[in-house]
């Protein structure tokens, strides 16, 4: 079609945060796939978790004169200056997966899920499931200070407010990793009377939940029954756990942020259509009722 023909000459720079988790690897893979399908020349830069590297990459993209920039910002603050530079150079910037604290005329659109909303969905599910029974919750936070950790905590707490039966009894960081998730869960179990006091686990990502599930099993309890497990991301491994009845629910964070972004970009290139400032991806809730094995098979190949 006409749209994709003009897209063929597009050079798009993509500043990715890093490769710290399976989810992010999947996002990178999907972005590359999407670009290839559309014939876009994607310039990829990995910032290794460092904002300074992202700013450098953006500056390089600008100096290189790319047609558009995708940015998955590692942190919300500190983007005004470089975004202004991009604007001065008339290069549209699309934010992926997280937003920034900058005036919204500095970027074209943001394709993100709502991190607070994700936490909220998880919290709502839990509130509905325990239905008024008293429930002690332990929380595995993401990396201290990272925006998903802060927002997913906030959203979850919002959902809990007004439900006096739900109480977060312990909250520690599991650094988004399986190992720490397991280690921290072990100490939660010890600290809460061998786990008898715990009714539910909320993990800021699936990896930590997978680690924690093992810890629960090793403590002689049944995850999913004795302790409810709800987490966020919807990576393939959690579906396996759900199929085995060891996890209860997960909130999807789709790794395909680039698709909508490229669509918006193509529309803008074609006739100058301005996309809305925020393209929100769906935060879909999956539970054991959703045929987890099938979803696992579907997601397996995506590079998680």
């Amino acid at each position, binding site marked *: 079609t006409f749209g994709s023909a003009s897209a063929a000459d597009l050079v798009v720079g993509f500043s990715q945060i890093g*490769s*710290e*988790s*399976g989810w*992010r*690897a*999947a996002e*990178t893979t999907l972005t590359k796939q999407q670009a290839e399908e559309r014939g876009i020349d994607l310039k990829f830069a990995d910032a290794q978790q460092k904002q300074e590297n992202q700013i450098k990459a953006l500056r390089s993209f600008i100096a290189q004169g790319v047609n558009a920039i995708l940015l998955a910002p590692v942190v919300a603050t500190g983007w005004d200056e470089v975004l202004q530079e991009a604007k001065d150079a008339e290069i549209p910037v699309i934010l992926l997966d997280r937003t920034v604290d900058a005036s919204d005329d500095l970027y074209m659109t943001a394709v993100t899920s709502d991190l607070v909303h994700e936490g909220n969905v998880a919290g709502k599910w839990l509130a509905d499931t325990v239905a008024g029974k008293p429930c002690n919750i332990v929380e595995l*936070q993401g990396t*201290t*200070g990272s925006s998903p950790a802060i927002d997913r905590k906030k959203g979850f707490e919002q959902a809990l407010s007004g439900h006096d039966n739900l109480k977060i009894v*312990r*909250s*520690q*960081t599991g*650094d*988004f*990793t*399986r*190992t720490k998730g*397991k*280690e*921290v869960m*072990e*100490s*939660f179990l*010890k*600290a809460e*009377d061998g786990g008898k006091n715990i009714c539910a686990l909320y993990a800021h990502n699936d*990896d930590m939940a*997978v*680690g924690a599930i*093992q810890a629960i099993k*090793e*403590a*002689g309890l049944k995850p999913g029954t004795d302790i409810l497990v709800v987490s966020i991301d919807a990576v393939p*491994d959690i579906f*396996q756990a759900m199929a085995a009845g060891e996890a209860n629910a997960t909130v999807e964070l789709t790794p395909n942020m680039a698709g909508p972004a490229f669509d918006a970009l193509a529309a803008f290139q074609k006739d100058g259509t301005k996309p809305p400032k925020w393209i929100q991806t769906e935060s879909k809730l999956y539970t054991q009722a959703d045929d987890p094995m099938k979803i696992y098979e579907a997601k397996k190949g995506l*590079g*998680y």
Partner: protein
Amino acid sequence: MTAILRGYALRLLPQLIALAVILLMVSLVFPGFFRLEIQNGRLYGSLIDILNRGAPVVLLAIGMTVVIATKGIDLSVGAVAASSITSGHSLAMTLVITLGTGLLCGLWNGVLVAILDIQPIIATLVLMVAGRGIAQLVTEGAILTFNDPGLIFLGSGSFAWLPLPVIIWLVFGILVALIVRKTALGMLIEAIGVNRQASTLSGVLTPVLLIAAYMLSGLCAAIAGIIAAADIKGADANNAGLWLELDAILAVVIGGTSLLGGRFSIAASVLGAIIIQSINTGILLSGFPPEFNLIIKAAIIVFILVLQSPPVRNAFTFVALLRAGRKPTEGQAR
């Protein structure tokens, strides 16, 4: 014999005291700390958790001790632990490939240090930077989940009421300590660490021993990597062993081995690693908000290190000598 044992106890005394104090402190904020029970055919409790969670750092510290004794340092162990990743092979094959990778990484470091004469900190920095990249290249950044029961057993199985990782590091540590102390290796390694040139001139096979030290460290890292992977039933190249090299170095220093090489003690380093893990576990059990984790850990470590520092230590030994009232004469005692 008892004299030797007493000498050993004296050497480990500061570490033992530090450990005891930390455990006591933890039990103050968390009363159930010392409780042990048997569950699923193994001991279960916070103390066991410390020994179990400490496994990777203990293993890294064992290798690191020997490397540091040669006046070296191995920054690459974390990355090597991350690269011990294979999947889709049989258990034996996986172990062979993984341990082989570790040895190979050690060989590389050793050759850079011993043959090309590059400063250890830089030589191993190369692999520290590149190693994780290679590991990610192999896994393409994803967490490889596996279901091999043998491998999983390594991570969460138990034997004689102890989790298998604990058994592994105990056996491995004792093995290394025996090999090093019952042969002349220990002394030769210390000689190299103190004065490499003089040792070479005295006929010590310096390059070979140096390479062997780094290979041991690589091997330890590989075992630590296997345990870490088996523990979570998945190989996570992105996060396995991240910053673990620093913990291992800290463990060795807390164990009283000088970064300038020379005298070393495997047992003391293992204790050092357990001390670090006790701090970590203690923080988790205490229920403080996570933003205080680092500052608590740093404060405790600084305190221990200050107690370990030569001036403070000398003051202690002086007192100890006064108490003993006579010079050590274990040699004649036999």
